[in-house]
């Protein structure tokens, strides 16, 4: 009897001893979404981190983007949520981010390399370090160069205006029998780049919205006309309601679109999906009357203010933000770096697809051509309200529910109403 009890007690003890490292582990949850292969890459990087830091157990919750957009804000409102999250609405939710500054070993490194982008995730005037921007994105067009070749039409050069691009696109579409000359993501953010190129201000110097103005009107008229004459496909912008996002990745990948106005985050996905089915090129942003700019953007990795383990969160963040790690992440995901050091020294991208190399070059050059307003909008607290109002009302004009004048007037009212409600 005693013999058996002794054996049992020893087993129990052994079990406890074996389990104790696990018991002493801190669990850090990261809520992550992926557009392309970022999930795999970051999982790989985190595995190496865990090997070096056995006291931290990282759980990578890969979720749909919809979850980040809809569920996470509600969780944050109620004081819950993960420890770290990859988010695009950095500015609007900034009250929920953890200030890592007191926990960082080297805050100066962060300021030096992420400096300007930190404004995207903190209130104006603050010097908090909530996290870092994992990638910089720039909006701009992709074209199906093979179709241009087939049609025998020359691709317009940098500096060409929309007025020069559109006839070329229509010509190519007609010659090759492709249904959609131009597709643009149904997004206010995407629309804003060309709008600024036509002189839109979006916000004035005090930070008050100036919507709509002549620039917005000009580009809105373009969009409406292009839908009416068949340059743009009705069902993309007019097929859904509200602020619903609709992209045209599948259509472009299937060679149904001549020009797809989207952005640099598509590079990895196109390399994967299109392969060598046709030549897909990134081209510089077409010009309006005032500029030839796209919009800056990006997703960021931030610490959540309600975490119970801020020191561990900071350790994880420092690892992920360190130069060698970001270098590898950027090289494998084919994103543009938001790290000053990396941008200066250049990145050896992991790809032998000539289309990828060309696209990255073009977008890197576009970064230099961004208008100040196109960057400043990312730091504006109510940017999502502006984008949402623009796309909702413009979508209704395309769907034939509102006249353009009505829509522009409503945009102004929507924005004023929502800002008032959010500021209560």
């Amino acid at each position, binding site marked *: 009897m005693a013999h058996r009890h002794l054996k049992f007690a020893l087993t129990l003890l052994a079990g406890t001893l074996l389990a104790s490292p696990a018991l002493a582990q801190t669990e850090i949850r990261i809520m992550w979404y992926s557009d392309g292969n970022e999930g795999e890459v970051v999982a790989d990087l985190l595995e190496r981190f865990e090997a070096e830091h056995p006291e931290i157990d990282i759980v990578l919750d890969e979720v749909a983007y919809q979850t980040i957009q809809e569920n996470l804000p*509600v969780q944050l*409102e*109620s004081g819950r949520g993960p420890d770290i999250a990859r988010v695009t609405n950095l500015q609007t939710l900034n009250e929920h981010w953890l200030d890592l500054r007191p926990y960082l070993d080297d805050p100066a490194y962060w300021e030096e390399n992420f400096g300007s982008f930190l404004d995207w995730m903190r209130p104006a005037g603050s010097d908090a370090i909530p996290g870092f921007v994992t990638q910089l994105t720039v909006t701009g067009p992709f074209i199906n160069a093979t179709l241009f070749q087939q049609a025998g039409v020359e691709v317009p050069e940098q500096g060409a205006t929309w007025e020069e691009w559109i006839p070329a696109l229509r010509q190519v579409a007609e010659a090759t029998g492709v249904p959609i000359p131009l597709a643009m993501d149904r997004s206010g953010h995407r629309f804003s780049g060309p709008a600024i190129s036509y002189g839109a201000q979006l916000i004035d110097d005090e930070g008050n919205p100036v919507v709509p103005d002549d620039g917005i009107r000009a580009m809105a008229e373009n969009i409406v006309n292009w839908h009416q004459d068949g340059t743009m496909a*009705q*069902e993309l912008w007019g*097929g859904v*309601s*509200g602020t619903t996002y609709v992209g045209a990745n599948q259509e472009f990948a299937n060679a149904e679109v001549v020009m797809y106005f989207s952005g640099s985050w598509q590079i990895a996905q196109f390399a994967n999906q299109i392969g060598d089915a046709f030549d897909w090129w990134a081209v510089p942003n077409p010009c309006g009357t005032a500029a030839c700019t796209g919009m800056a953007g990006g997703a960021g990795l931030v610490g959540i203010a309600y975490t119970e383990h801020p020191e561990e969160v900071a350790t994880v963040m420092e690892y992920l933000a360190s130069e060698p790690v970001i270098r590898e992440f950027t090289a494998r995901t084919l994103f543009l770096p938001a790290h000053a050091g990396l941008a200066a020294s250049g990145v050896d991208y992991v790809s032998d697809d000539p289309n990828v190399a060309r696209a990255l070059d073009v977008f890197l050059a576009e970064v230099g051509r961004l208008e100040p307003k196109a960057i400043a909008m990312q730091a504006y607290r109510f940017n999502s309200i502006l984008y949402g109002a623009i796309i909702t009302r413009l979508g209704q004009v395309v*769907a034939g529910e509102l006249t353009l004048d009505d829509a522009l007037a409503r945009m102004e009212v929507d924005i004023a109403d929502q800002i008032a409600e959010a500021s209560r």
Partner: protein
Amino acid sequence: MTEDTQRTTSATTSTPWVGLKAAAFWPLRLVMDLVDRPLAWLQATFGQRAMVVFFLLPNLAIFGIFVMLPLVINVIYSFTGGSALFLDERVGVGFEQYQTLFDCRDFTDPFSCRQDAFWAGVYNTLTFMLLQVPAVALTALITALVLNREMRGRGFWRAIFFFPVLLSPVVVGLIWKWILERNGLLNALLNGLGLEGTVWLGDSFWAMFWAIFVSTWAHMGFYTLILLAGLQSIPRDLYEAAAMDGTSRPRALLRITLPLLWPTMLVVLILALIRAVQIFDEVYVLTGGGPGTSTQMLVQYIYQTGFAALLRNLGLAAAASILMGLVLMVLTLLQLGIAARRSREVAG
């Protein structure tokens, strides 16, 4: 009992089944018998009424906490503003949210309203109700009449029509969205027949048509079963007597079947109406509310305003849902009132 249920019960009382059931349920039995002691004491001490309360309590508690309480919170939300989640952080604004909803120049034109998405939702839901409920009731009736004929393999056909009811609304929406795409099956079939296809879900008329069609497709089987049961409870000798009198089949349908089926049909109509007012999932997956706002329903408006939007407007969404609830209540009471009067007529 219909012959099918007779077959069913005989199948479940055969020996292996009994043994299996006994084996599966003995832990449950043990627990239940243990529970009997304190409950018997309860009954002895407080009388039968205590047991009634006990039986009702779990159900009512869940309803109370997870349905009624949120409803009450919703009512309070509708009188507050701001973007905070918790009530104590919200700002009271009186009837302002309701006023915003009713701020319209012309009530017959949703686009003259300040919250045009809300009124679009109202009109779309009304249109949907007025068209889908008769559609689903009619198709269910026809199917039930067809299935009511003497035929072997009735169980098979019943199962076929019931199949879509089992699918989740998301699956239903996705299946049809896939078929109705620009390059989807429907256009391919039409092209094969020499007709032109079109972008179905990109046209406001067709989008609503398909929303109604898909919703009817998904739920018809359920109502068919109910109507079928009702049909089968009509005594056969009535038909025999009518046949002997030389009554034609259509006349028998009109004079015997439909009047006796009416109470069942009423149940179907009420259920279909309640579901139609709450329509959301299938249509949202199918059309996303588009094109424009032409298939955006009321519940979608509430969902987007109160949950999915980045800057949620809980007060406005709550006000809209309270209004919707009031309308639902009125409709149901009306229906019940008509039903009560009708059954009094039939009985009397």
